[in-house]
């Protein structure tokens, strides 16, 4: 069971959370102006990387807030969590920090 650091509550067991897919996929401000292809990409296309993945979690049985999380999909190591709405972190920087 993973220990996930909720940016609002601190470390909590995975049981309290619900996964919510890849992060930083913003809903187009005006969907009506998107092409079918652009809209399909927004709906269905995900990066699914082997390695660092920025994803959304919700602390559903805690503060109930959505937040973002950088997790290595190979090792399950969580490098960073931060509140929804904050900009994407610099992954190279995070890797460097984690290596130290």
């Amino acid at each position, binding site marked *: *069971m993973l*220990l996930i650091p909720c940016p609002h509550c601190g470390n909590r067991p995975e049981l309290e959370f619900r996964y919510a897919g890849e992060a930083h996929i913003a809903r187009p401000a005006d969907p*009506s102006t998107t092409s*079918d292809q652009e809209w399909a990409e927004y709906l269905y296309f995900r990066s699914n990387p082997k390695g660092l993945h920025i994803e959304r979690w*919700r602390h559903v049985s805690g503060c109930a807030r959505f937040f973002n999380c950088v997790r290595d999909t190979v090792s399950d190591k969580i490098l960073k969590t931060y509140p*929804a709405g904050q900009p994407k972190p610099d992954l190279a920087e995070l890797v460097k920090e984690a290596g130290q």
Partner: protein
Amino acid sequence: MSLTLRAKRSGRVDRTKPLSFTFDGKTYRGFEGDTLASALLANGVHLMGRSFKYHRPRGVITAGSDEPNALVSVGSGARHTPNLRAPQVELYDGLVAKSQNAWPSLSFDVGAINNFLSPLFVAGFYYKTFMWPNVAWKKLYEPIIRRAAGLGTASSEPDPDHYSTRFAHCDVLVVGSGPAGLSAALSAARTGARVILCDEQAEFGGSLLSELHATVDGKPAAQWVEEAVAELKALAGTVTLLPRTQAFGYFAQNFLGLVERVTDHLATPDPKLPRDRLWQVRAKEVVIAAGAHERPMVFPDNDRPGIMLADAARTYANRYGVRPGGRAVVATAHDSAYQAALDLKAAGVSIELIADLRKEANGPLPMAARAAGIRVETGMAITGSTGRLRVNAALVSKLGTDGEEAIPCDLILMCGGWTPSVHLFSQSRGKLVFDDARQVFIPGESAQAERSAGACKGSETLAQAFEDGFAAGLDAAAKAGCAQGKATQVKLAGVLDAHGGFLGAVPHPHDAGRVKAFVDYQNDVTAKDIKLATREGMRSIEHVKRYTTTGMATDQGKLSNMNALAIAAEALGKPIPAVGLTTFRQPYTPISFGAMANHSRGDLFDPVRKTATHAWAEAQGAVFEDVGLWKRAWYFPHAGEDMHAAVLRECKTVRDSAGVFDASTLGKIEVVGPDAAEFMNILYTNPWSKLEVGRCRYGLMLNEAGFVMDDGVVGRIAEDRFHVTTTTGGAPRVLNHMEDYLQTEFPNLKVALTSTTEQYSVVAVQGPNARKIIAPLIDGIDISNEAMPHMSVRLGKICGVPTRLFRMSFTGELGFEVNVPADYGQAIWEAIWAEAQKYEACAYGTETMHVLRAEKGYIIVGQETDGTVTPNDLGLDWAIGKAKPDFVGKRSLTRPDLVKADRKQLVGLLTVEPQTVLEEGAQITLIGNPPAGTSALGHVTSSYQSAVLGRSFALAIVSAGRARMGETLYVPMPDGPIAVTVTDPVFYDKEGAKLHV
């Protein structure tokens, strides 16, 4: 009872405390401190089981949890536990044990015929012999094989024991309490660290418990262990000692699973105690001190009872005071077997020969054996054995010669070397590296906060084990943020170091195709099987493993993996690391289902949600159904009624007079705030801005892909307040969906969302008499048709209790839904019920609700929809606010796939034969007997007998269904196709006149 096989020295067994037990119905005697295996050996019993595939007689070969042969069942009735390892079963008075996989008896087993049919059971036999004909596998081969090849049987009675679970955190978790583990625990604990020390055995000390000669700091090893444990016990505030506790799994982020066997070793356990306790430990740092497994030698007929691992025999002699035989031949490739020979000799066993596979053996132990007068031959292989239920001779050959010498004996001790136990390290995702010099896999780079110490790290000497342990404990405590500790050393004396080892099959002069040299005892895999697998194209050890099943038994190949790998590598002409190592999986040793299920059984398996009227409905004889976690009244049968009759009566009563229904389980969400209407505009397809306070609207929720996700009636309580209802099962999903958009896409909106599902009891009163029933109870609301039209909501009182009164209908009749605080639910229900009885109204359940709504063509999300259905598919375009610039799912509704002409659309179906009720889920086709491979046009989503229609009817989704009105389609069934006519999905009161009375 004869005790001649007890050595002079009693070891750690208490000979003043005799115990009586039975094995296969025969009574034996043992002592406190014995295991089932040691007690049986003391009674001269080596034959403890039959092998899995060939039913060959097998004896115990280890003294620990890695035992592959001596698997027994213990206990009886509901407490019958199969597949326990005899060396791990602690003896208690009255213990009842049975052998497994033998019929009619262990010494005469009919299944042993498999041994002679063995050409049928070669590697890959599952894939070859039984592939054809297909049907024979299921009907013929599988049942026979399953009966003949197998382990013990589980009890079919409910488990009478209870289990407990505990979460724990510590600075340092030490797994294993041999010299390395104890030293690690000591040095970590002395820094003040919170330490958990666990060991699978009943006593701490590991290999030190079998040590006769070594002294530690001038004290006998056993005394040093005792003092170390006493020191740890004295630190009870920070140190937790867990004997009989298996660390079975190493998971992400230093999370380990342990199972503590609490009562299995007790004759009369306190019923308050759990049988097992599951520990879920989050450790800052871990020390793995899991030791090493002694490897068998792979030689022909290496599986007769009386053949065992050398160091296991030494443990039986030294720790349990048992002589496992009278005359022994030792076959080895490692110095440690010489220590076993010396100790067994001291215990009174005659050592006939030590046959060492190595060309030379000149270490201190071989020299000591020679000095003790034992015959030692180097360059000599063990090449076979004779005997039936017990070995009676060992066959040995000088390497490079064909001559074979038979040496009479009743015990063969073998030692092919030692395999570090890297299971937990590997589970932690650490990388193993192959040490070419010593031919072992050892822990390489760590993936988690752990380190190995002692034999599991590949350390070969006792001195190194202590050194590793003390260093590992200090390192772990420091990394966990505890105080710096002082380096500790111990002075060892009386130990002779041992080295050596051999991997693979021992060379022999026999026809390799005709002998059985076992690699994996538990799954009956021989050297021949592994070579065959490589000849048949298996290249990776993962393939060899699956093809031969080597290493796939519950022992996970603890004894066999390295030999199997070496044989495969040799056959493939590749170095060992190039062939690969199979994955180590949890659990390390089998653990009980009870420990896993733990409290989650019976009433505690899942939470049960009951509405306020549950007891009332129960008293009325309601039958309940599970909807999510809810118990809902399904129907209310009168005396003599079956479900069919009850539902027809309830339906008729509602349409003729009225019915009362508990709708409390519907999800309710309060959407509040200055931007509430704007938020609703985004989340629902409908327009909300112009909905007046006091009015309701049917709300339709889509996901972003444009598919229907949920629906429900929404009432506007105030300008800034909506009372939203959802489906019973969808409530948490809908709230999550709303929160997602509110928190992440539209965080600027000032809205708060609150689940109020359990705050309200909801009593639906439906039918022509609904108004008359509630009228006498309502205070402060004009409920006339003019003042309170269909789809409106009013605040007021019922029986003096505050209510949100909805006028709405899910039946097609005049209807009200009375929302009251849940605490008043039962009282209000009973008050309404008293009025309802004046009109001969009924209480109805979910089945009647389903039928009545289907007659009106009202959908149920999850029944008419399956996550791929759009509003247009359902004929719900009227619920879409076309003028709204945006809502969740809107953009998707114009995607090409969502506007295709052949999309499946909601229609009604009427069977040509009016009393035939279609099966829900049945496929719909164009012709009655379509050829195989024809795609269905759609499927039946709801199907019932209707009281008001006097016939059956159904809802369905059918490709281009709205263009098929009046067409005849078919529902192919096993008894032949059923002809149906496509109709409008509204069967009752199409114009809706009955809603507006």
